[in-house]
């Protein structure tokens, strides 16, 4: 058959089975092109891939590092805090903005009319977010090793990276929730409304005054940071500012994991409900 012909069988209409290998390829292809398009979108890739490392080096290493006279505890804490900051953006904006825009511009409808495997759309976006999180972590670790004066084992780096990548799913859920409700134009504003308070009130950049510290419990960023700090046996900025020298004391691992899983499931469930209603 010539490559440019379009031969169709004369058999009765019947449903073609999709071999498992081809189905798997469809999921992979969706994830591959979702990642490629995100990497090629300068408005998305530049801020979320470069900014966390640049700000970490400028503020976390040079500014706060010199203010703390090279305190190794603060160096580790700033690394974990910026790791959380780095994985929040791709999840929230990647889902929030892309879902809202694709919904509004008809791409989502087209994909639903085409035989795209039902879960491929969400899985592709989740994998894209985790790829971005992995890239952010690799560049942060490279910067931390080069200028951050970190004394952390390779195993600990790997564990923190895995936790941050998995933790980014909580921010995917929140972004997805916003993306299913906001229009393409308003989505960035709504994502920022959630992202900025979560980042600042999560105690990532500076210790909060004691009276404001309960607000931290509302931010998923707080719990993800706590998990990373727990692995590295380091106190948070709040704890350091109140004189703690040992590992993070409050916000145990089980509580942190439960909150992050809960946020992921709650916002994911709300978003999927809305997503199905749109369908």
């Amino acid at each position, binding site marked *: 058959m010539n490559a440019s012909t379009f031969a169709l069988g004369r058999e009765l209409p019947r449903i*073609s*089975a999709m071999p498992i290998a081809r189905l798997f390829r469809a999921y992979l*292809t969706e994830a591959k092109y979702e990642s490629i*398009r*995100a990497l090629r979108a300068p408005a998305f890739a530049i801020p979320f891939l470069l900014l966390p490392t640049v700000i970490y080096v400028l503020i976390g290493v040079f500014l706060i590092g010199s203010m703390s006279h090279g305190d190794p505890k603060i160096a580790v804490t700033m690394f974990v805090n910026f790791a959380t900051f780095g994985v929040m953006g791709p999840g929230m904006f990647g889902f929030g903005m892309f879902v809202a825009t694709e919904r509004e511009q008809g791409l989502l409808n087209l994909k639903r009319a*085409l035989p795209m495997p039902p879960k491929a759309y969400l899985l592709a976006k989740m994998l894209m977010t985790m790829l971005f999180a992995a890239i952010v972590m690799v560049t942060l670790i490279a910067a931390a090793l080069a200028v951050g004066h970190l004394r952390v084992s390779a195993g600990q780096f790997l564990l923190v990276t895995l936790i941050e990548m998995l933790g980014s799913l909580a921010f995917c859920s929140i972004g997805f929730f916003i993306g299913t409700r906001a229009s393409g134009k308003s989505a960035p504003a709504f994502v920022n409304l959630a992202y900025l308070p979560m980042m600042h009130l999560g105690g990532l950049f500076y210790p909060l005054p004691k009276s404001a510290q309960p607000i931290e419990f509302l931010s998923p960023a707080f719990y993800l940071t706590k998990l990373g700090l727990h692995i590295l046996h380091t106190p948070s900025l709040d704890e350091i500012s109140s004189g703690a020298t040992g590992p993070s004391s409050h916000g145990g691992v089980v509580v942190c994991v439960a909150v992050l899983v809960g946020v992921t499931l709650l916002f994911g469930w709300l978003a999927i409900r809305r997503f199905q209603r749109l369908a």
Partner: protein
Amino acid sequence: MTQDCLAELSGVSKRFGKVVALDGLDLQVRRGELFALLGPNGAGKTTAISLLLGLQRPDAGTACLFGQSPLLVETRRQVGVMMQEAALAPELRVHEQIDLVASYYPNPMTPVAAMEMTHTEALADRPYGKLSGGQKRQVQFAIAFCGRPKLLFLDEPTVGLDVQAREMMWATLRQLVNEGSSIVLTTHYLEEAEVLADRVAVLAKGRMIASGSVNEMRALVVRKHISCSTSLSIEQVRTWPDVESATRDHQGLHITAGNAESVVRELLAADENLEDLEVRRAGLAEAFTELTQETAP
């Protein structure tokens, strides 16, 4: 549903708030035909297609695709779609867009083969966002058939195409039908439906007001057009009983008549030097206008 019927709406009604989009619509798409769905804006064409694609559910009646629910992804693997308003990812290159959609199907074409059929090989490495409107439509067309679907839904496929690109798309559509594919086409270009369609259905206010072959649709309009070069005056011709209207331009006299044969006889009798006589049946456009005017408020 017979085995020759690939898609069917049976007694389908659909409302959006107070607006009745479809009102008891029955519609069938048969195997191997190019079926054109026509109608004025708001007639319910897009809603009908959306129901057949499983994008919406009917309030009443049933929508079937290959005898099954259009909500099943297995059913939609037999279908290709080109929508009027769907912005593909601007960052992906043309061959990547086709590769992505081809991956959804069990036995797709290669991106190269799909680009050959749409004459878009030269665009293969161009980002979709940098293409012109017409080039984007050609890529969307390639995406629609790259999975070798048995049934293609094309919503206004030639909007924004230049004459050459449009004729190439028409040729590809004919090729697809000749090779056994079925096509549902919605278009505002009645000339397109006239040239391509095996069967036409006209919707108005959510109901089907006529359906049949293009010739059957034309026959719904009994009047015919007569043109000739003659020295007879318009005033004289207008007095004849079967003449509905008469005009003159630099090409000659143009008459619209209910009974063309009797008018031609009168013309030949009244002017023995009459030349360039031509009698035409009403076109699809005229039939469409007449049909939809009858249902206008």
